[in-house]
């Protein structure tokens, strides 16, 4: 069979075919890029939304914490205001208590001194009763006791 005549435009047509095929390859590559980017964009959008939601939650928590702090501080201030007269009463009571304590201490010292005196007198009495003169004069005190008892 006679070979097909090679037309002058054959090379050009072949180049066009080649370019058409390569364009298809490029389209496939771009489709892949598109198909890859679309879910990535969606993921990033979702991440941004999550980050915003998280930030808002934290802001709400921070606001709530700030409110609790303010409430607590106000409550503390109220307690402080109420505690001041009590503190003054307490101080007065403590002063009175100190005075009473001092008085007790003084009385206790006086008592100790009296007890010491009693003990001295008892000792002296014991010494008198043990003396010879006391014993020798015992009969006199007995007589006196009898006559007086009558």
């Amino acid at each position, binding site marked *: *069979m006679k*070979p*097909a005549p*090679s037309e002058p435009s*054959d*090379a050009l*047509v*072949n180049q066009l*075919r*080649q370019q*058409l*095929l*390569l364009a*298809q*390859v490029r*389209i*496939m*590559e771009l*489709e*892949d890029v598109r198909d890859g980017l679309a879910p990535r964009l969606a993921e990033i959008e979702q991440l*941004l*939304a999550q*980050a*915003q*939601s998280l*930030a*808002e939650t934290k*802001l*709400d928590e921070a*606001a709530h914490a700030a409110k609790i702090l303010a409430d607590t501080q106000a409550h503390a201030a109220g307690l402080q205001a109420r505690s001041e007269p009590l503190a003054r009463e307490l101080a007065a009571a403590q002063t009175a208590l100190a005075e009473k304590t001092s008085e007790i201490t003084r009385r206790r010292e006086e008592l100790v001194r009296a007890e010491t005196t009693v003990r001295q007198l008892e000792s002296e009495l014991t010494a008198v009763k043990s003396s010879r003169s006391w014993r020798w004069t015992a009969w006199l005190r007995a007589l006196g006791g009898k006559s007086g008892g009558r």
Partner: protein
Amino acid sequence: MSAPVLHGEIETPRPVRAAGGLVSLKGWCLVAGAPEAPPVRLRAGEHVLPMTARLPRTDVPALLPEEPGAAQCGFTIESALPPGVHHAFCEAQLPGGEWRVFKQLVIAAEAPPFLAGLDEPVREGVLRDRVKVGGWALDPARPIETLTLRYGHREIACVLDRPRDDVAASFPAVPHARRPGFISGDFLVAGHGPVRIKARLAGGGVRVVPTSVTFSVATDENHGPELDLTAARVALERGAPRPAGSPGQKTGRLLNIVFILPGSFASNNALHVIALAAGLAAHGHACAVAVAHDPETLAHHDQPSFRGLAHHEAARGLTFPNGRGPDLIHAWTTRENVRGLAEKLRARHGARLVVHLEDNEQQVLAHSLHRTMAELERLPDAELDRLVPPDLSHPRRARAFLAAADGVTVIMDRLREFVPTGKPCATIMPAADARHFHPRPVPAEFRAALRLRPGTTVLAYHGNVHAANAAEMRALYAAVLELNRTGPPVVLLRTGLDRVDFLGPLAADSAPHVLSLGQILHHRHLPPLLALADLFVQPGGPDEFNDHRFPSKLPEFFALGRPVILPRTNLGATLRHGVDAWVLDRADAAGITAAVRTLRADPALREKLARGAAAYAAEHFSWARSADALAKFYQTLSVA
């Protein structure tokens, strides 16, 4: 006196996005006991956005019936915020004049949109005249450096900096809005399609907006009426990816496996390793793949199930997700760069070593160095060391490397000749990626668009030409030329790189019959192209090189369901001629020519061979099965 109490809510769905920089908020707010609802504003940093409108509400009075201001407590705020993420405060003004926050928001504001339009000579519709066209374009953030109009296959440049008082009046705060007009630099040229305005901004960035205009200019000085620019595009059907095979039953303990490749992820053997690694990962094993160069070529593969890295990175030591080093090193060939890294890693991590053979390495070396194997064997060590490049196997060191391995895998049984006696060995068959390589019909519409001559037969071959296969590829081209000289036309669709000049004087004569597309970066893009073919041809014949290799394109040929012409060597030696494939004693120029003529003349035979090819592929080629076999082999090497 107690402090005023605010009630309020923002009802715009959260999170709030300011599309195009425009915030739009809706809500309600009132001061307890106040006769009227308070003024409201949004404060974000230094930006204060006042209330835009007061809205009546019926729901709030129902909710708070004792509040006199409830009926008119609705509001909207609509205004612009600069791009960015803003911490914003919704504030209401108390009767004493003080602004108090009642809500906080995080607002993500986008950049203001690029605005543009055509209005000269038309604002919308179809323009068929070869005229100059004009319009305006404005990016509120940055001036425009260059601007083009795109339509169909055309892009025409425009002249900027023309006054447009109407636009300037609308954007008094934008300094570069004074001269936003443009006009095309020339009259419209032939082209058809909706018009987009594309601007390149100062400081980088590109903006594109569609218009309401379609240009449909049928002819110009370079395009006659015979070219129909309005014709619909004929697409090359890709088809949706099919599911890959399921892995078999998991056995043994999970391993850390590193594959060492001699080239990049763009090589054929990388396809094998990637597919096997995917199968092993499905079993639960952790895989890493080290390549000698261009690790960025990993991007050519979708969703790899392993860590990819370069040899030099791996040489510093490997740690897997479980914190351990590799349990097993799979050296992919005995090439010097693979051997060097494998021995280094083995010494460091004490891992088991498996070597994979896929070629007669000595023959490849002999081809590359243009010497016989006998000559190479006689060379003294020093001379051999000097001659053998890193990407080829050193005959003596490769033998020692194999001898020291714990096991060997081969791509085909014939390669067991090179496995030391008694060494555990497994044959791991290559396959085709089942997601993309499956029987596909010829895309008739697209093939018709190629305007091939009537009766044209399309052959396809995807693969590189190198020293080892140069002669047989020359035979394929010679066959194509001969077929065109003596009969109906034949076109060879070819992809891949020519690493050697293999055609010589055949180049010019064969060129009109070859559609050479060069390297296709993404392997998954090949099947739609290969589907254009009527027949696949693997040239060559039995010899020391072919007998010990398994051309990786063969499973892909068979999987696509076309008649395959191939020589009686490697896979061809196991096939049934006339059933599975058309097997030639030698697929040289004469053999290929005769085979193509035979098949072209017999449609029934072609159909039978197409079915046979698909059936053979389904029965013998499966990456999932190969990965199962490999996983089982690993377990036999006492690594468990």
